[in-house]
């Protein structure tokens, strides 16, 4: 007979069985509690920092960014929350089905996704900047087997409703809403705010919760430019047509209000994010600089508009081996307006010598050349004005017609605006105001007088001289029916690699203002090395007219000249 260790009475003793069961049931929680105690007590730091890092990494995407607008409040750049879609290969259950679904949803060829799949070892992004409707479709399948392995990462897309318009000024920002170039970078601090730490709050008990409703407490600002989008459009259109016709290496169209210094349009070619040639391009201005030399000489009392300049038979031997020739006229002497109308290098050179190096240098600096403007655009150049101590006679004379000096477009337009503004140089502005969410407005574009460069009489005389250039001289193609236009053409040869001047490489330009009786716009056109040889008067002056006409119409500027 077999004897069991427990009697049948013992085996079926309910009380004992319950006791054993209870012990077994309690064992599991005790083990779990023990493990939790170990983790909480001994590995607390490690795990909590790991968790926080994960949360903050995710929330780091939460960098809000303000808008960039034109002077009239048209949105030029705005951030929109979007997502990127990635795939973690090892979690995907059915590769073919997932790829087919993504190809259909994201409207991209399946082959393209397959290629990415083959190249990536573990993870790859299928598409970025996914639009909200597509995101919804993807988000809906995330919890199904089809969505296994898909990852939707939040990011921002910076949208520019007017396309590439003013993009060289606006600049770029990345998908994390950080400014990289242009105004986006210049005002990154004002435009953006990292709110991840604000949104992630630690509640009692140590948990981190994510609060999405903090938008109203942010302090991101909106930046208003002085740029007028419609003026910018006309400048870009005129420049695009010139680029198509003449194929220059670079082209610039800049429009400024002479009385305030506000830049209302700045178009560059080629367009690169945050690289505005209006501030960064340096060049020898050539004949457009004669205006500066002549204005300085009149202001210093060295010459008057009636002064006659001897042309030395149109072959002026300036020094050993240096002869300046005027081929465009056959006169023995020119008055100052004629020097400008015919763009005489001999005349401008002689006037510069009459003024002398010290005074000419002083006026050049006074006009703001060789100094960065207060716009302080990223990468803005100061140009180059060598000190007069080192000038030879030849240097002195050539400065008079814009050689041996490097300037930026914004410096030249500000100098012409000073003449238009009765001799007072104004601070150029690109930023109109910064508006903060609490209602505070930081007005940046207050008209600021830098200094008086010329007397009012000199400015008036120069206006007449420059007007005569357009009416009778090289700038005839800038004439606008019903308006008095003043300006100066320029065709400057470019330096070649050997240090001399290249005959076939040149810069064609025109700078002027309109209407002369009450100047509203100063416009500068620069065409750097057009493929088809062209002059400032034939290539740049018509662009001035193309830009000025719609601007005069838009602003409702009344004509100041009798209409024939």
């Amino acid at each position, binding site marked *: 007979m077999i004897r069991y260790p427990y009697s049948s009475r013992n085996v079926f003793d309910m009380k004992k069985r319950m006791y054993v069961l209870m012990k077994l049931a309690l064992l599991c929680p005790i083990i779990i509690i023990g493990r939790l105690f170990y983790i909480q007590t001994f590995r607390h730091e490690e795990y909590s920092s790991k968790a926080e890092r994960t949360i903050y990494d995710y929330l780091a995407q939460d960098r809000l960014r303000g808008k960039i607008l034109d002077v009239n409040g048209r*949105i030029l750049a705005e951030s929109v*929350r979007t997502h990127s879609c990635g795939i973690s290969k090892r979690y995907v259950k059915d590769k073919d089905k997932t790829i087919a679904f993504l190809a259909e949803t994201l409207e991209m060829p399946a082959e393209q996704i397959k290629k990415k799949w083959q190249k990536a070892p573990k993870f790859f992004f299928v598409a970025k900047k996914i639009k909200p409707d597509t995101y919804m479709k993807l988000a809906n399948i995330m919890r199904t087997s089809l969505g296994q392995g898909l990852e939707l990462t939040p990011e921002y897309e910076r949208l520019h*409703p007017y396309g590439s318009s003013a993009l060289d000024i606006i600049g770029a920002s990345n998908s994390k809403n950080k400014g990289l170039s242009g105004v986006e970078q210049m005002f990154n601090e004002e435009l953006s705010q990292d709110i991840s730490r604000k949104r992630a709050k630690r509640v009692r008990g140590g948990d981190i919760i994510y609060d999405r409703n903090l938008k109203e407490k942010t302090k991101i600002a909106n930046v208003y430019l002085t740029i007028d989008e419609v003026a910018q*459009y006309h400048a870009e259109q005129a420049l695009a047509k010139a680029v198509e016709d003449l194929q220059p290496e670079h082209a610039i169209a800049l429009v400024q209000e002479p009385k305030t210094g506000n830049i209302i349009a700045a178009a560059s070619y080629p367009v690169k994010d945050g690289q505005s040639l209006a501030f960064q391009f340096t060049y020898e201005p050539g004949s457009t600089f004669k205006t500066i030399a002549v204005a300085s000489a009149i202001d210093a009392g060295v010459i008057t508009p009636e002064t006659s300049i001897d042309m030395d038979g149109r072959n002026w031997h300036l020094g050993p081996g240096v002869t300046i020739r005027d081929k465009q006229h056959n006169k023995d002497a020119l008055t100052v307006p004629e020097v400008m109308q015919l763009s005489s290098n001999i005349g401008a050179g002689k006037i510069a010598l009459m003024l002398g190096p010290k005074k000419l240098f002083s006026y050049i600096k006074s006009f703001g050349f060789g100094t960065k403007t207060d716009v302080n655009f990223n990468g803005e150049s100061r140009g180059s004005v060598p000190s007069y101590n080192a000038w030879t006679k030849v240097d002195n004379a050539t400065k008079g017609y814009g050689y041996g000096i490097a300037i930026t477009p914004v410096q030249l337009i500000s100098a012409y605006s000073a003449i238009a503004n009765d001799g007072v140089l104004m601070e150029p502005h690109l930023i109109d105001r910064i508006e903060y969410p609490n209602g505070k407005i930081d007005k940046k574009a207050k008209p600021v007088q830098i200094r008086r460069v010329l007397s009012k009489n000199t400015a008036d005389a120069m206006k007449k001289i420059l007007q005569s250039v357009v009416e009778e001289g090289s700038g005839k193609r800038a004439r606008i029916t019903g308006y008095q236009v003043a300006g100066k053409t320029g065709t400057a040869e470019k330096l070649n690699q050997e240090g001399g001047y290249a005959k076939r490489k040149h810069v064609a330009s025109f700078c002027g203002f309109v209407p002369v009786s009450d100047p509203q716009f100063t416009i500068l056109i620069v065409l750097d090395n057009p493929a088809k040889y062209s002059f400032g008067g034939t290539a740049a002056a018509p662009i001035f007219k193309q830009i000025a006409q719609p601007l005069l119409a838009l602003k409702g500027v009344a004509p100041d000249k009798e209409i024939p």
Partner: protein
Amino acid sequence: MKKLIGLLALCAFFFLITFIHVAINRSGRNVSRLQRSVEIKEARNQYLELEILRLSGPQIVIPYAKEHLGLIESEPHKIVVLGKQER
């Protein structure tokens, strides 16, 4: 028997806590889903507003008006601006 009742009561208590947690999590998920949905709709709205801006911008309107409506840009001296002083 008393221990058994105590054990059952303990189980019921833990079950209740678990149930409450599940309920909270579920409603939390719902709130989160709704918030996400609002965000997406806001983003879609923003896209549409920017699209309206794009379509009403001079880059689109002027060429369209020239091509389809025969717009001729007037020369500035032919424009008479009334009430400019008031503006």
